[in-house]
């Protein structure tokens, strides 16, 4: 079969997922072309893991349709072209590292050589160690090697850096970038914008089951970096940078210090001042609405 480059790597059309009355994903539309590296960003419970479970065929959608590499993600022929690193998964602990890799290699029609997998994951020295004796970071690296076993066209990683130290995180991200540069499609979920920035061409932000932003890392970074400044003032402030609600004024700004300095310099009497990090949702309201409230 020739590489089907014309197909998108992932297409979600109106995909919803409910767990009982809980709506985990609400009518998501998402198209990921081949070769793109995408970070899915969002807080806990946003729907990241649900979206990944659906695209791996581990769960089925309540509504809508999902296509992965042009097929149904529940088909073995599609799974054979996808590599996955899951968040809550385990391995038989009695196996050695090389035995676990050999097992997963047997699942794929054209697996990568075992030595290459060990070296990509940085486990060459630990090849003969039992899974039960690996450190947390080493187990994560083994999961990474297993995800790469089939030389996947689409690599899916659900929060791969959780619980890793700085160095392990850096080296994993470097390896992921390397794989993305080989033309593979990479989809990684994360809590951290800097990680998204390091590996992704595109950042998709999910919150409460909705895609609230979709753009380049720099677009998204600009929005998330802002703080919300909120205060009351008895004197009417005629300033378009603020949203006024009675006596309360609010503004989103990348630099709350200079905004406040300016207000004090103007001798504006303010009370009940708070400066808070903008929530992801707040930060992206502007992006999704296409309405850039920009301050300071």
């Amino acid at each position, binding site marked *: 079969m020739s590489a089907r480059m014309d197909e998108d790597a992932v297409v979600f059309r109106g995909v919803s997922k409910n767990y009982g009355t809980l709506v985990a994903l609400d009518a998501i539309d998402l198209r990921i072309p081949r070769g793109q590296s995408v970070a899915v960003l969002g807080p806990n419970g946003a729907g990241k893991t649900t979206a990944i479970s659906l695209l791996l065929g581990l769960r089925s959608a309540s509504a809508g349709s999902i296509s992965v590499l042009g097929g149904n993600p529940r088909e073995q022929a599609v799974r*054979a072209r996808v590599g996955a690193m899951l968040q809550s998964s385990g391995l038989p602990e009695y196996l050695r590292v090389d035995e676990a890799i050999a097992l997963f290699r047997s699942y794929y029609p054209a697996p990568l050589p075992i030595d290459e997998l060990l070296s990509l994951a940085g486990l060459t020295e630990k090849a003969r160690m039992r899974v039960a004796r690996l450190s947390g970071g080493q187990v994560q690296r083994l999961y990474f090697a297993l995800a790469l076993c089939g030389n996947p066209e689409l690599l899916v990683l659900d929060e791969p850096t959780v619980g890793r130290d700085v160095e392990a995180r850096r080296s994993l991200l470097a390896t992921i970038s390397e794989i993305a540069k080989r033309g593979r499609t990479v989809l990684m979920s994360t809590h951290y914008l800097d990680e998204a920035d390091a590996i992704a061409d595109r950042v998709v932000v999910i919150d409460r089951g909705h895609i609230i932003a979709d753009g380049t890392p720099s677009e998204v970074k600009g929005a998330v970096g802002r703080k919300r400044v909120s205060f009351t003032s008895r004197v009417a402030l005629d300033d378009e940078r603020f949203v006024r609600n009675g006596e309360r004024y609010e503004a989103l700004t990348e630099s709350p210090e200079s905004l406040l300095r300016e207000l004090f310099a103007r001798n504006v009497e303010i009370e009940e001042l708070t400066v808070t990090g903008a929530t992801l949702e707040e930060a992206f309201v502007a992006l999704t609405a296409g309405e850039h409230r920009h301050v300071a």
Partner: protein
Amino acid sequence: MSLEIAPFAPMLRAQTKIEFIRLLRNPWFSIATVVFPIMFYAFFGLAQARMPYMNATVGLYLLASFSAYAVMSISLFSFGASVAAERGNGATRLMRAAPLRPLAYFAGKFIASMAFGGIAVLLLVLFARVAGGVALPAPALVLLLARLLLGSLPFVALGFAVGYLAGLNAAVAILNLITLPLAFASGLFVPLDQLPPFVQSIAPYLPSYHFGQLAWGAVGATSEPWQRAALWLLGYCALFTWVAVRAYYREERKEFA
């Protein structure tokens, strides 16, 4: 032209290999299923090995009993404990995301368990021969192995059912609670005629009793006709398979729907 999915035979071979490794590297499993039967046989079987019993000898009769116990407990534990463990630690999820074919997964467990059961019986037969001079003719040995391996299917199904119904820690306890009383009440540890009348009266309704009958018949000891034992085991196999399949689909609906 590259293949769309991996060839089945190497996948099955790899899956069988790790299942075998699992059994070998779990010392408690090997002790409970290989060492215990040999030890029990040393205590009970060797002393009066040549004494006639049930148209055979005590040595042969107990050889069949402990072979049946070994194969039964291997079937129950290798399926039940491994399925529960893999569900418990999330290995099932990882394997499902990979293009592992379910048939290879189940067949790998089955082949490894059968091989382990066969080895346990052969070791016991060898021990009886060397330590007790109890000679089991080759045709009888082949018959014993064939009957035990085929007759273990209900226990395989019961193991699966427990594996899908019980949590990781509960599974091993539940399997012990099934295996030991079943083996005892069916006369696999102590011959039935030495058990309390109450136990003797319920024994003919237990799958392990009919499993034992197949084994005793294979060494020439008096037993019920093999056809009747096979029919009982078939019925239990259908029942336990039904429970296992229901438990499997319950899990599917919960975790993978």
